[in-house]
């Protein structure tokens, strides 16, 4: 810090200055003494920063009308606020939707059953969920591989052994892994919701190949995933009416959680950070006033030497 001050100001701020100059704070401003190179440097940094900021703002505000897809409208998610957590009842229902609908084609290889504990399921329930799958394990004492029921530490099973098998079963289209899909798509959970509820008949002039469907939210419009969510396509265990939008909302919330498992902790931490930084700001302000009080209130009297 001192070195930086020294560089821009010479010794002006570091040495004690004749007190008359200090009587007004504006006289402390030392820009007038900067070398012209420094002024140019500071000016350039300011211009570049402003320019980059304006560019980012413009890109973010742009209509993006050149693409062929419709942009997902923002939905009133209950986890949208600065301090708002995910709706865990919704995560639990979303898991049901994923398990009974999505997992037929989509893998979720980075989420394990243990991750559900304390988020949407109790430990016993998560164990029961895990035991429904069969995991190939081994080698055992005799060197053979064997099948066993799943454990808490097992990851969600993949519907296909590899990408080639997945493509072969889906007309050459690869159903993406859903673990981080909300973070991986522009629009996040809004996009997932709109995509799942946005299927239409193809408008005139749009040619779809065999096994393709029209969805205006999908880039290009032709998606290889058929509409999967209909009213009452599954039954919720908590009795919530399984309408199409409810199913889409719950599975989008679930996928938001799988993409950002730290979501709730992060928002809780924000409250803590605001508290601590607010406290430190108050202290800094007090200390600044404290240190400056003598400087601002002192009076310097010139007493000429008697001859």
């Amino acid at each position, binding site marked *: 810090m001192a070195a930086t001050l020294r560089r821009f100001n010479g010794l002006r701020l570091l040495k004690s200055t004749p007190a008359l100059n200090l009587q007004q704070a504006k006289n402390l401003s030392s820009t007038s003494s900067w070398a012209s190179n420094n002024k140019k440097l500071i000016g350039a940094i300011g211009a570049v920063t402003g320019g980059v900021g304006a560019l980012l703002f413009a890109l973010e505000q742009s209509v993006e009308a050149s693409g062929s897809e419709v942009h997902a409208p923002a939905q009133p998610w209950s986890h949208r606020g600065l301090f708002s957590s995910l709706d*865990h009842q919704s995560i639990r229902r979303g898991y049901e939707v994923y398990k009974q609908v999505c997992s037929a084609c989509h893998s979720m290889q980075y989420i394990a059953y243990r991750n559900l504990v304390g988020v949407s399921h109790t430990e016993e329930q998560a164990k029961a969920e895990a035991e429904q799958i069969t995991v190939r394990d081994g080698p055992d004492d005799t060197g053979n591989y064997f099948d066993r029921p799943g454990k808490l530490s097992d990851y969600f099973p993949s519907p296909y052994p590899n990408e080639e098998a997945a493509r072969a079963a889906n007309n050459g289209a690869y159903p993406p892994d859903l673990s981080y899909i909300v973070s991986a798509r522009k629009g996040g959970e809004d996009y997932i919701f709109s995509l799942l509820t946005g299927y239409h008949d193809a408008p005139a002039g749009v040619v779809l190949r065999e096994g393709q469907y029209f969805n205006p939210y999908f880039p290009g419009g032709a998606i290889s995933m058929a509409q999967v969510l209909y009213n009452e396509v599954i039954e919720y265990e908590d009795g919530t009416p399984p309408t199409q939008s409810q199913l889409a909302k719950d599975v989008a919330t679930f996928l938001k959680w799988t993409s950002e498992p730290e979501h709730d902790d992060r928002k809780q931490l924000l409250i803590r950070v605001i508290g601590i930084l607010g406290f430190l700001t108050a202290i800094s302000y007090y200390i600044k006033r404290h240190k400056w009080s003598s400087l601002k209130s002192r009076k310097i009297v010139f007493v000429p030497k008697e001859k």
Partner: protein
Amino acid sequence: MKVIYNTLFKRTSTYAVAIMASAFFFERAIDVSANMIFDTVNKGKLWKDIKGKYE
């Protein structure tokens, strides 16, 4: 103020102890109040609010 200075801040030993003790209480106060705010804002949405239904 004078009492605080004379009992706590005057000697380095007591000053250090005062810093550590106040850091502890400050941390606890921030944690507890942050959790309380978070739980109040999100009442009904957290796992601890719904887990009663599943146990």
